[in-house]
């Protein structure tokens, strides 16, 4: 059983691409979503192996710093 990890946004950004859905298994370093802010594309990576237990964003959403993007459990 892996510990539950919340993946949070580090800045105000638009959600440009969502690459995984709830139930997918992911490995440490996999790209979960790609954010876009200030003309920069910022990949958000899984920080552990596990399963995507919740996905809190959709493409086109605006996230604030600290918002939970996904939960890996």
């Amino acid at each position, binding site marked *: 059983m892996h510990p539950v990890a919340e993946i949070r946004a580090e800045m*105000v950004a638009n959600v440009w691409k969502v*690459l995984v859905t709830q139930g997918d298994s992911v490995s440490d370093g996999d790209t979960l979503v*790609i954010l876009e802010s*200030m*003309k*920069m*594309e910022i*990949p958000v990576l899984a920080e552990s192996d596990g399963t995507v237990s919740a996905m809190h964003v959709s493409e086109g959403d605006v996230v604030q710093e600290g918002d939970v993007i996904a939960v890996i459990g």
Partner: protein
Amino acid sequence: MFETVLVANRGEIARRIIRTVQRMGLRAVAVYSEVDAHLPFVREADEAVLIGPAPPAQSYRDMAAVIEAARQTGARAIHPGYGFLAEDPAFAARVQQAGLVWVGPPAEAIEQMGDKIRARNLVAAAGAPVSRGTKSPVKTVDEALAAGEGIGYPLMVKASAGGGGMGMAVAADPEALRTEFERVQGFADRTFGDPAVLLERFFPRVRHVEVQILGLADGRVVALGERDCSVQRRNQKLVEESPSPAVTPELRDRMVQAAIRAGEAVGYRNAGTVECLLDTSTGEFVFLEMNTRLQVEHPVTELVYGIDLVEQQLLVAAGKPVTFDPDALTPSGHAIELRVNAEDPKRFLPGPGAITAWEEPHGEGVRVDSGYAAGTTVTPHYDSLMAKLVVHGADRAQALARARAAVASFRVEGPKCNLPFFAELLENPEFVSGDYDTGLVARMRS
């Protein structure tokens, strides 16, 4: 000469162009989006026209809105700056169809250089060195392996639709190519909806060196030396300097001649930049791409040559001679530009925000091209460049000393800011020695 120039851009570059337009005794018209209404470039223009909301597609990239603003204000010429519509051949053509002067190269030259593979073939035909790579997208592992044999290892596996350093991987041998090809292809398909992959020769230690060219009204193409842009994060430039510490007079001569040939091959007019990769171990260089516009880092060239490139652009566009003697161009001293971005100095993640304090450095050899001021806001809608801090000295050591002092006295509060990174860089032994390459920032952060 046209009397009124519309500047189809924003931030530091709009402000910088407006300054030259006014110094030449011409009127400057700004266009701006709703979120930019409070910025200095809007205030400083002789006239400013609101052209739409924040998203660039509805304002700065809206061709009809920009041309209508020119009509309303009686502007007879349009300067596009960099980014937005600057390298859109359709816009260059529309500006001219509307009876206005386009301050840039011919639409055909923009189009020819905009297609990377076509540009490489054109430049190769003109006799300039180009990198070995696939001439069209590779579709299968077997095709990749066959192409890899001809190109040689290590090679770069690149998503054709990628950018900003994403969807790229290095393969050291055929075994690694099998793995990386499938990984990059899968990533490209999922991310960009386009599985096309390109292969190129990869140079482990490489510098990014570019040549400034200017196509004159009389048809001649001249070069104004080089800029070294090897300090990069995520394949984007952070620092530029001229001359390059890695370029000998003999190499400079070869690079300049190749750049002029590349410009002549497309009948180039106005300012442009020929970007090259320089293999520091062999001194060989290859053509990377040509930027058919004024470059962000043009001030380092201006300081070293003592000329105003925007003024030359306007004169060339008006069919007039430039202010200098093209046969007697002499560089002097050393210039360094630091891009002051709204991003953190450790991981370089963007952080927009309201600016609560803004104090620019002053002093001999110090120039600041800024787009913001205290009380203005850096929004997430546009790139993170807040200002360019540019220093000039009699030699590189003096330029470095002036840069250190200027960084220490530049005060920005509110948004995230990468000034502390520059303080660190300017003391970094590798950077200070001048013997660095594009891997420098990654090494500093590993």
